[in-house]
């Protein structure tokens, strides 16, 4: 009994000291699910790299803001020629890299040329494809000439893959990243955590945090106790299924936002019987999106009718095109000569939206006579078999890249979709920078994909963030996968 009291007293004391320490806090531990393989955003596709470094350590000419808008970054302003082919960027002066070297136009030229070089292994090399040449006008001015006008050029320069690096440190950024951002890299305990500290000679508005640690917590079941014990104060990308465990707790804020992740039931458009429009439409009619969102995403997520985020300004609501209608689906299958149904496979990668959603979709398609065999695969297998070799019938995946409707016009992409009318719109879109015209074209593109029922459009992946109620400034939405800490601070 006495021991019991001592333990309780100790626990209360621990709670009390913990609480009083919150007042003047300038440190933060952020939980991330996957550890980045390395720390160079220009040399890998892993979202985890940007989650740690984007906007914190590395900066680009432009940057993407909390709601997906393009903002000036290292370039304070720019001028675009009338033909839309020449961009002249005016750069900030007095900017230093974390190793003390100066940033100027030479670094900008170096970074862009490096990313688009023949031997470049930049994972988003396509972002730089339109660039014809990069010239240094003076130390604070850089001129980029494009081969053709490109509507999304300024947005492209805001990706993590387009950040500015220095020639002296470019080759060692994987282990020791050197950028121009408000935080500098301090240490990386592999498998455990990455620590950033405030950079003293930052050129822009100073940040409130002195120290930020990104701690790798791979297991969703471990994330909840990590929050409850106070070890980790924020999980910007939290598992939707675990939200119920922290929702009612006043110590935490649960923030549901939008991502750029279109979750789709991808269809191999060249493989019979999926080459028939009626079959693909039948699948779309057979899907009950609400049931899928409830079962695969804890009821969180917005239904979509084409490949565009509902949060996007150019979004067109096409969810009414294929309402859940089993009879209509059966009718279409009959038209396609498949009144007795057919068998197919459904390959599911590891994320829970795919594994849980797959079970529900299989049962929904069974109702219209399509018998699916579920095959769980690892990411590596998925990339190999489904994405590269196109050896699949159906699969579920979320396309998290922003503004990526053009993937449907890519030759040899895993959808095996080929529609010259769609390709024409995308080609025109690439050359258009007028906002109103872009909106019309993007609307048409969304309409074509929905009409063709290229894939089964399911829902927009939610961004579920959970963090300490006293914490302010973390992103609500995820227009790109990043944890921008520049505005984050503790309040009382």
């Amino acid at each position, binding site marked *: 009994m006495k021991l019991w009291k001592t333990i309780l007293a100790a626990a209360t004391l621990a709670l009390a000291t913990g609480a009083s320490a919150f007042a003047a806090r300038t440190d933060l531990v952020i939980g991330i699910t996957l550890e980045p*393989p390395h720390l160079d955003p220009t040399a890998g596709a892993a979202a985890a790299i940007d989650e740690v470094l984007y906007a914190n350590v590395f900066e680009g000419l432009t940057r993407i803001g909390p709601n997906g808008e393009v903002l000036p970054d290292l370039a304070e302003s720019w001028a675009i020629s009338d033909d839309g082919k020449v961009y002249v960027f005016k750069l900030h002066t007095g900017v230093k890299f974390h190793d003390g070297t100066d940033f100027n136009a030479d670094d900008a030229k170096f970074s862009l040329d490096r990313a688009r070089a023949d031997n470049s292994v930049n*994972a988003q*090399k396509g972002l730089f494809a339109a660039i014809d040449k990069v010239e240094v006008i003076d130390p604070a001015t850089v001129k980029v000439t494009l081969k053709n006008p490109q509507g999304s050029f300024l947005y492209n320069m805001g990706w993590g893959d387009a950040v500015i690096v220095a020639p002296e440190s470019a080759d060692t950024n994987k282990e020791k990243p050197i950028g121009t951002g408000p935080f500098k890299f301090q240490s990386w*305990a592999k498998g455990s955590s990455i620590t950033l500290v405030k950079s003293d000679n930052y050129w822009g508005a100073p940040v409130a945090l002195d120290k930020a640690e990104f701690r790798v917590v791979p297991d969703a079941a*471990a994330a909840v106790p990590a929050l409850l014990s106070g*070890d980790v104060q924020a999980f910007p990308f939290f598992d939707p299924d675990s939200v119920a465990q922290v929702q009612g707790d006043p110590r935490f804020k649960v923030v549901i936002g939008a991502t750029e992740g279109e979750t789709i039931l991808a269809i191999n458009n060249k493989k019979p019987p999926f080459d028939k429009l009626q079959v693909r439409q039948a699948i779309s009619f057979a899907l009950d999106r609400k049931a899928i969102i409830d079962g695969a995403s804890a009821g969180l997520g917005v239904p979509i009718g084409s490949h565009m985020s509902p949060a996007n300004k150019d979004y067109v609501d096409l969810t009414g095109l294929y309402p859940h209608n089993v009879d209509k689906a059966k009718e279409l299958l009959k038209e396609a000569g498949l009144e007795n149904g057919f068998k197919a496979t459904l390959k599911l990668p590891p994320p829970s939206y795919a594994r849980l959603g797959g079970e529900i979709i299989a049962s929904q398609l069974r109702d219209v006579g399509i018998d699916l065999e579920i095959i769980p695969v690892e990411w*590596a297998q998925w*990339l190999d078999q489904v994405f590269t070799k196109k050896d699949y019938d159906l699969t579920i995946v979320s396309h998290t890249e922003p503004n990526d409707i053009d993937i449907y016009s890519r030759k040899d992409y895993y959808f095996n979709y080929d529609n010259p009318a769609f390709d024409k719109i995308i080609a025109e879109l690439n050359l258009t920078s007028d906002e109103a015209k872009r909106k019309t074209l993007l609307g048409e593109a969304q309409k074509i994909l929905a009409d063709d029922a290229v894939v089964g459009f399911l829902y927009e992946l939610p961004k579920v963030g959970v963090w300490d109620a006293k914490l302010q400034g973390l992103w609500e939405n995820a227009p790109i996968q990043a944890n921008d800490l520049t505005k984050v601070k503790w309040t009382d």
Partner: protein
Amino acid sequence: MPSVWTKQDSGPVTAMTAYLLKRLAIAFATLVLASMVVFAVLEIIPGDPARLMLGMNASADQVELLRNQMGLNAPLALRYLHWAGGLLSLDFGRSYTYSVPVIDLVRERVVVSLPLALIALALSTLIAIPVGLFSAGRHGRAGDTIAMGAAQLGVAVPNFWFALMLIYLFAVWLRLVPAGGFPGWGAGIWPALKALVLPAIALALPQAAILARVTRSALIEVLNEDYIRTARAKGLPYRAVLWRHALRNAMIPVLTILGLQFAFLLAGTIIIENVFYLPGLGRLVFQAITQRDLIVVESVVMLLVAAVIAVNLLVDLSYAVVDPRLRSRP
């Protein structure tokens, strides 16, 4: 068989050396065979590390470029020989994803996993032997039934669930230890040990349950032997009989299980290190498999194979320590 006689005649030391040499030769052959199996199996599983690194927006040409940079396009046999040859000179290759030598990764991780496994092993032995002695001494009585019931529960409870219960009790509610993570030995012995306490308990308890049952049944068997009756008959107290005569003779099966458990402990760390997000070898292998960082998986698995073989060798030798009759076995 004159040769056998000579060996025996030349005394236990030479016999022991011959025995040791034979065991070492077998261990080496096992390692070579294991390296072939490990390499072949991992090369067969689908997945391309270069494509994984570059993601879905990279072109096929770029993936090919990275494959060449990683040295993945060399013929299979050549890559095996290169890797296996490297192992002989303790060169474990370079990680595809981290692009640092594998040995550096292992060195960072082993300082977490090895102490964890050793603490768990010590803990399970310290719990299991007394419980086994206690139970065997009260064979069939209430104390025995309760202890063995608890052991049954220990065997049945999944260790990841048990780990979560420990976390909620000691980290969330009582706040005595962190819920997970590892501060590194640089942060001091005490904080580091604190981070290992719960994982070690979670690992040790199921092992202790098994070991306690084995200890108990081995002891009960020995206690039925004639020499125990003799020892009791000559007036030796029960406790002395249990400790001096019975336990020593019951040690062989216990040591065997202990050796096997070391392999299980290493495997168990994969799950436990995930639940407690400890940067150990188990996590490293797990991550490397999902990222298709094959060279890391292959090299770490070989290290684990070597560790298990070494432990088995130690167990074999310990039989000879416990049982003098085995020392002179040819």
